[in-house]
């Protein structure tokens, strides 16, 4: 992007001899950015963007990036970028090198929210002519947001030359927004209303509503706005349902991830594993450790840290799980209740251990760039982080299903859980299978920890927040049935998200719990209960 702007700058320099003179005119404006605190900077910025000279773009960009400094010695505004222990200074206009300076010799020009807004608006107006379609598009969006009437001329000029249809549409919408905000003739208003009707979002709705309720607009314009509002609202309602579905799916995936390890340790093995949440927490802390290693040794590869963290968390949590099984759980088979007590004790100890080692406060787990941000899908905003978690949850589920149904290990697990003495007699080493099964469940919990570290606190309490929900999901779905866990997680997630807008977060959750209680009355063995000649005597 910066290269493109430089290119633009070069074109301008070549094209117009006057621009040198202009650059000279810009100098005092640039200087004024460095005086008078936020207000002074804002004033300087306004003048700078009013000048309309693309040469100002690098200056403003530097201001946005926090690279614009004042040299304390002479008060000159410079661009300073870290070079070793000192800063390399360049002239904001023209880019000539001005030598180096230690950190103490320069002072940053501070930026606050108001300034950031102004910067976006002026960059928008100034980059409407960029050769890069993406930049023009975001420039148009910035103008749409700022609704800055001073950008109207630039917008009209840019529109006249614009070839790209999507950028054109964005620019037209920006122009319509300015038109409606600033007020315009009846004809223009109607055109603007028509343009905005195509943009089915809240922004458009707000603009259209302002027309419909405006006192100056004509009746016909108002009528056009009203019908546009109706169509936008309908679309928004539909998208709202889709959005709830997506949120439900996303929450359901989180529940699924949290519960699926429990479906193995509790559902398959019958261990009431209260330390399950702590396995999730250990996975999250493993992610933190892996990221710390990346930050220290390979910051450039940070985006890959999550991929490394996955196997690491699986192994660490799985290892801890095996350790727990070998030392405690294996003495307790056939006494499910005792496992509740012992694992509760373990969960207390594990929390405190993590607190002692890592401290009680939150640890920062960063998101790799491919998990940050969001994209728009029609009227839906889908964040990459959530999308990956959904994909990941289903992948883990599928992998577990395959592991249990199609591998020898899975066969052994089923053999051991169904008939231990018989499995033993057939040469299956039940002790080993027990340990590995518990390790598998714990390892999956560790995987969940990697995913949850992206959306939740990484703190010693992380696991506590999920343990109850996990048990609800497994029990709702039917103990011992993986498909039940899947359907249970998605049902409860979606139900929760559909209730939340009406009942609020707290009441919504209460209703879900009551639903579970009532549901269990109807199906005392969960959703996917095995029917058959009852086993109890």
């Amino acid at each position, binding site marked *: 992007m910066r290269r493109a702007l430089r290119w633009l700058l070069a074109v301008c320099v070549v094209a117009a001899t006057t621009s040198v003179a202009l650059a000279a005119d810009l100098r005092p404006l640039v200087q004024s950015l460095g005086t008078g605190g936020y207000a002074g900077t804002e004033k300087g910025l306004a003048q700078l963007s009013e000048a309309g000279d693309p040469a100002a773009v690098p200056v403003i960009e530097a201001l946005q990036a926090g690279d614009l400094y004042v040299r304390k010695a002479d008060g000159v505004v410079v661009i300073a970028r870290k070079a070793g222990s000192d800063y390399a200074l360049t002239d904001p206009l023209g880019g000539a090198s001005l030598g180096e300076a230690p950190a103490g010799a320069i002072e940053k020009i501070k930026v606050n929210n108001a300034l950031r807004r102004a910067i976006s608006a002026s960059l928008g107006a100034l980059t409407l002519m960029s050769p890069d379609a993406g930049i023009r598009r975001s420039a148009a969006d910035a103008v749409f947001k700022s609704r800055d009437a001073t950008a109207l001329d630039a917008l009209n000029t840019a529109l006249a030359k614009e070839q790209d249809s999507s950028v054109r549409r964005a620019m037209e919408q920006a122009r319509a927004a300015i038109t409606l905000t600033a007020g315009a003739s009846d004809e223009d208003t109607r055109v603007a209303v028509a343009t905005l009707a195509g943009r089915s979002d809240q922004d458009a709705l707000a603009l259209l509503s302002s027309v419909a309720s405006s006192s100056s607009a004509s009746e016909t314009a108002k009528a056009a706005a009203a019908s546009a509002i109706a169509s936008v609202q309908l679309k928004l309602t539909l998208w709202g349902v889709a959005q709830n579905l997506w949120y439900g799916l996303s929450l359901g995936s989180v529940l699924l991830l949290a519960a699926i390890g429990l479906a193995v340790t509790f559902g398959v093995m019958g261990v009431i594993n209260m330390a399950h949440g702590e396995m999730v927490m250990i996975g999250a802390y493993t992610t933190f450790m892996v990221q710390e290693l990346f930050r220290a040794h390979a910051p450039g590869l940070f985006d890959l840290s999550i991929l490394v963290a996955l196997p690491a968390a699986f192994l660490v949590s799985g290892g801890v799980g095996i350790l727990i099984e070998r030392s405690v759980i294996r003495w307790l088979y056939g*006494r*499910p*209740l005792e496992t*509740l*007590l012992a694992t509760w*004790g373990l969960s*207390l100890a594990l929390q405190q251990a993590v607190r002692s080692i890592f401290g009680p406060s939150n640890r920062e787990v960063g998101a790799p760039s491919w998990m940050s941000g969001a994209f728009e899908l029609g009227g839906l905003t889908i964040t990459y982080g959530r999308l990956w978690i959904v994909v990941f949850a289903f992948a883990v589920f599928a992998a577990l299903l395959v592991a249990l149904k199609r591998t020898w290990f899975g066969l052994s697990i089923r053999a051991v859980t169904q008939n231990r003495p018989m499995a033993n007699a057939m040469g299956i080493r039940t002790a080993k299978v027990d340990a590995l099964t518990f390790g598998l469940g714990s390892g999956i919990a560790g995987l969940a920890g990697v995913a949850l570290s992206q959306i939740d606190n990484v703190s010693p309490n992380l696991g506590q927040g999920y343990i109850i929900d996990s048990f609800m999901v497994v029990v709702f779905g039917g103990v011992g049935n993986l498909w039940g866990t899947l359907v249970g997680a998605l049902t409860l997630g979606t139900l929760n998200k559909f209730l939340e807008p009406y009942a609020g977060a707290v009441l919504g959750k209460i209703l879900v719990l009551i639903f579970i209680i009532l549901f*269990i009355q109807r199906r005392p063995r969960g959703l996917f209960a095995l029917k058959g000649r009852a086993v109890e005597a």
Partner: protein
Amino acid sequence: MLTRFFLMGLDRKAGVVLTILALLAVLVPVSTLLVPADSPFHLSIFTVSLLGKYLCFALLALALDLVWGYCGILSLGHAAFFALGGYAMGMHLMRQIGPRGVYGNPVLPDFMVFLNWTELPWYWLGFDHFWFAALMVLAVPGALAFAFGWFAFRSRVTGVYLSIITQAMTFALLLAFFRNDMGFGGNNGLTDFKEILGADIQAPGTRVGLFVATVVALALSYMIASGIIGSKLGKVLVAVRDTESRVRFLGYNTEHYKLFAWTLSACMAGVAGALYVPQVGIINPSEFAPASSIEAVIWVAVGGRGTLAGAILGAVLVNFGKSYFTGALPELWLFALGGLFVAVTLFLPKGLLGLGAQLMARMPKSKSLPNGKPADQKGM
């Protein structure tokens, strides 16, 4: 008939427990109020409140043991009944504050005043009378338990399914009481009580009185519980615990039996909560937290499931450990507590009282021992 019922449960074991409780009821007031403060036999008010709290927990454990140890219903939501009883008492104590709140509103509790409530919600009416509150202490947990049990037992929800929905119940209540809109003071709960039955709640005499009341309630509940266990009803309950379907084929409506024990147990838990609140001075939604219920289960397990004395012992011991370690080892006490739970499960599957039994196992067996099986085929 009533006398016979109480006498039935009174074997020598009960005698020991009741003697200890009677001693507590006499010695504690004496050494607190009469023994001079510099004497080594003086008990501070702090200690009395602490003991009172332990005994409230012991009563909760006793209630839990009645359903879990003798009827096989593992409740992971018993703290809900405890908290409901506590709230009923807390509401009465709130009303007793009268115009002494910070805003001086004679009717509305402070938290309602600053949330701009203008009148007392209907469900607060009546709580200014002690008798009404006392009734509610029994009725609210009892009614909830009855309704919950009626549906759950009829639907034959058993084992972990039952345990988990009891947990769902207490969690839902936690969230509900947490909502400020409910009118129970939200997360802050009810606090800053001034007096109970006209006595200053902070005064040593009142605190000792509350302690004695707790001892009496515990002793009474113990007698009721051991009376039940000694009766034919108790034998049916134990039979239900181990082989419920067999009991049904004998013609017993096991749902009714479970419902009876469950509701009675909830009422006992409610009483425990009601005695707890004036002694600790606060009731808030965190008492509903599933973790509180699980802790209560652990007390019973530590002491010995299926022995009433064990439930009491476990509650007192674990809570004493908690009080002691949070002061002595503030950074490490969770390791100690967690380690204790693991150790008890691994090495004392029948709890501490079971240990005594194990040591004496060689002695010839004689009649009637309810603390037979640890976790058995009925599991939870």
